[in-house]
């Protein structure tokens, strides 16, 4: 049983990217963090795109967590995430943040930080530092 903390929602145009990244970061974070993946549109999620209502559904599922960090790929996934923020009840919206960070590095860093029991602010700070990561 994972204690309450900051949950991560990965949002990509592609269901495969979102699910693959979820698998990767859960392994890296030794499963000490809650991660959900949202990607693709339509009933089978096969077409590329992001469905704000699916993002909302996942946020509602994790509404009892201390915080929820959304990490998106680019373009319309950001618009979808922003659209969802407008649909959330005030209290819940306060603990949801869209991370301004690259998808893979940002999700990875956020998950590692969250797995240590860090606060939402700490998760946001670490994840956004991933913007300046060098590969070598």
């Amino acid at each position, binding site marked *: 049983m994972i204690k309450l903390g900051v949950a991560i929602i990965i949002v990509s*145009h592609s269901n495969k990217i979102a699910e693959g990244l979820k698998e990767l970061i859960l392994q890296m974070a030794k499963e000490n963090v809650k991660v959900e993946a949202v990607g693709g549109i339509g009933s089978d999620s096969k*077409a590329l795109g*992001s469905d*704000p*209502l699916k993002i909302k559904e996942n946020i509602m599922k994790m509404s009892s967590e201390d915080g929820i960090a959304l990490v998106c790929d680019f373009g319309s996934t950001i*618009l979808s995430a922003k659209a969802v923020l*407008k649909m959330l009840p005030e209290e819940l919206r306060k603990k949801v943040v869209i991370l301004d960070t690259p998808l893979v590095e940002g999700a990875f860093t956020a998950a590692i930080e969250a797995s240590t029991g860090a606060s939402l602010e700490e998760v946001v700070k670490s994840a956004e530092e991933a913007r300046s990561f060098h590969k070598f």
Partner: protein
Amino acid sequence: MLQFLSSNDFLKIILKIRNVIAENKDYLAALDAAIGDADHGINMERGFDSVADQLGVVDVNSSDVGVILMTTSTALLENVGGAAGPLYGMFFMNMANVCSGKNIVDSETLARMFEAGLESLREIGGGTIPNDKTMVDTLFPVVEGMKKAVNLKLELVETLKLASDAAEKGMNSTKDMIAKRGRASYLGERSRGHIDPGAASSYLIIKTIYQYVSGQA
């Protein structure tokens, strides 16, 4: 001539918009191929097909205008890929919120609905303004035109004529603009010379409403 639009009118208008979008799928795709990823036509068609499916199970006689537009919003949010999904989805959602519980809508309410819809686009777009080469270039003058028409106490059909003319002009004005939003913005100067596909689909929507109200379609 119509003075009000009922739930049934909105249902018919939305279904006409679906047909117009389908007829213009290739046109929208061609506009998007020039400066985007060529998927606006197919995305919009897919979205409005699903709108038609979802409206097909709505009992229009017991639904207010808000229900019709909220159903439209949900189907677009769930089924349109690309930026058009959240943008049009939130546009229709904000419109629906203004007319929730209303069985008929007059010019004044319609103007407020479009204003609320435009506001949501600008907000989730991160403060989109006219001249960014987006849907806002079509819809901003539409809202201005409608407000003007309401102040002049024009008939509904005249209000929509003004809106449709403003939309066409707004859409055409995007041709000479450099894109500042979305994928097209990466093209910089090369985005000039093409009408924005979102501005074009927005014009088609407004034109269809005008044609319905004026009895042309």
